[in-house]
């Protein structure tokens, strides 16, 4: 997993949640971030879709256990 993807994802999280204190690493999950719940989960997903110009399916989302999985998945798309 490259750090660049992680940084981009971190920036998207900061924008979506309006919280500049968010610092992600590859083991981060939704339990680690207070504001991240199933209500706003899709805002993140669509923001990521838009940024990387990709389409994400529900099955993809389910396959990610943490931020590391998400970054790996994105890296494999290109």
């Amino acid at each position: 997993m490259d750090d660049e993807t992680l940084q981009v994802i971190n920036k998207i999280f900061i924008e979506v949640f309006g919280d500049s204190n968010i610092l992600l690493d590859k083991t981060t999950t939704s339990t680690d971030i207070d504001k991240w719940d199933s209500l706003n989960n899709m805002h993140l997903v669509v923001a990521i879709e838009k940024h990387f110009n990709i389409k994400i399916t529900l099955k993809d989302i389910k396959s990610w256990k943490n931020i590391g999985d998400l970054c790996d998945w994105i890296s494999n798309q290109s």
Partner: protein
Amino acid sequence: MLFNSYEFIFIFLPIVLFGFHFIGKHCRHRFAIAWLVGASLFFYGWWNPAYLGLLLFSIVFNYSCGTSINNVADGKISKKIILIIGIIINLSVLGYFKYANFFIDNLNVLTGTNIFLNEVILPLGISFFTFQQITYLVDSYYNETKEYNFLHYCLFVTFFPQLIAGPIVHHKEMLPQYNNDSMYRIHSKNITIGLTIFILGLFKKVVLADGISVYASPVFNAAEIGTQLTLFEAWVGAIAYSFQLYFDFSGYSDMAIGIARMFGVKLPLNFNSPYKATNISDFWRQWHMTLSRLIRDYLWDPISLTLTRHAINNNYNAFEMFSLTIVTPILFSFFWIGLWHGAGWNFIIFGMIHGVYIIIHNIWKTIFVNKTNFRINKTIAWLITFFAVSISWVPFRAESINGAGNILAAMFGLDGISLSGSQLVNLGPGFIWILALLIIATKFPNTIQFMQKFQSHSDDYNYKEINVERSLLGWNLTTLWAIIIGIGFCIAIASITKTSEFLYFQF
């Protein structure tokens, strides 16, 4: 046959358990599975043999759909068509048995017609086995179901501990367990742990839930026939019902989890101390969790993704965004949660109340918590959540909208604030019961915490959102605990004096 009956505890369960482990040891595993399927069908048929046919039809139909979906290559239109037909037929059957009378009644009111339909008897557990199989079809569509043994499939649907009132399980969390050899070997630890969890559940049901029900039922019954209630009566009735429902349903779930464990099967957690929740979203993460995850995964997520994509791609402003991506899917999901519980406006109102609660909580979070980091005192937050939930149980429990209205009016002092005693229930002992169950529900460890040293539930991919705090008080394989649980069992057995159905059977 009820879990809280002598014939189940002393005849059915021991015979089925012994038979299963005996066959599992001496014969091929598939015979042990067949024994369990047969026992489960007997268990279901005990209530009304006529509906065994419906259950069997449902199994054969969905199994055929699932294997057909799996045989078609990805991306082919026929794969989607089979899925859609499968879902439509499942929903039609459910619609007929559960909602036909409700639909006709409303149609008659709306159009002034006088269509008559004989009262359709609701088959036990139809919502549970229908939804469980719809998720199976969807999972097959997404290639998440790996194994297609018909006998295993039958057990996945009929497994008697969770057939009638859940926990609602996924194909992918059950079938791998049936393929594990250790399920067919008798482990004394499994029997001990299972029996302990079963007794905890039995105690919750027959001692606690049935015990407090005498302070709830008379109030709801009186409200139904239009008796004017006093402020205290209404509150005691409503709060007593909140505890009755919790101990009834979580007790049932514990019994299901305990029985399954005796057969070497782990079921998912269904309750995680919901009345400890300090906001309404947490409440839904901790109450009937297998229904919440089903709604989230199969209803909320697809709708939320589609609407969010639409809103972001069209550059909606903040208000439009909120309305489309939060309010709409919440109200839609909770409408179905309400209707899932029963064919009546009461249940729809219950669902809508919770939808509105979640929206309010979301606005609160957006404005205060996320922007200013302001948080209200935990006790106040808990009080608001608990009372909000208790109020929502009123339409849930009441048989009619009028009945619910009568109780709510009295609760909010619309019938005058009289501090007089009650003709309906004994208020003093009622308060003591409420206080005792309040302490148990909020201060005691729940089953998963109590059994923390012995993984009591299946590992679930969705548990990442679940936070189970470690508890100081935990069960262990000691003589002292054996005695305590044994005493609990004796008290529970002595308390089974009358037939008392589980509240969730009607759903």
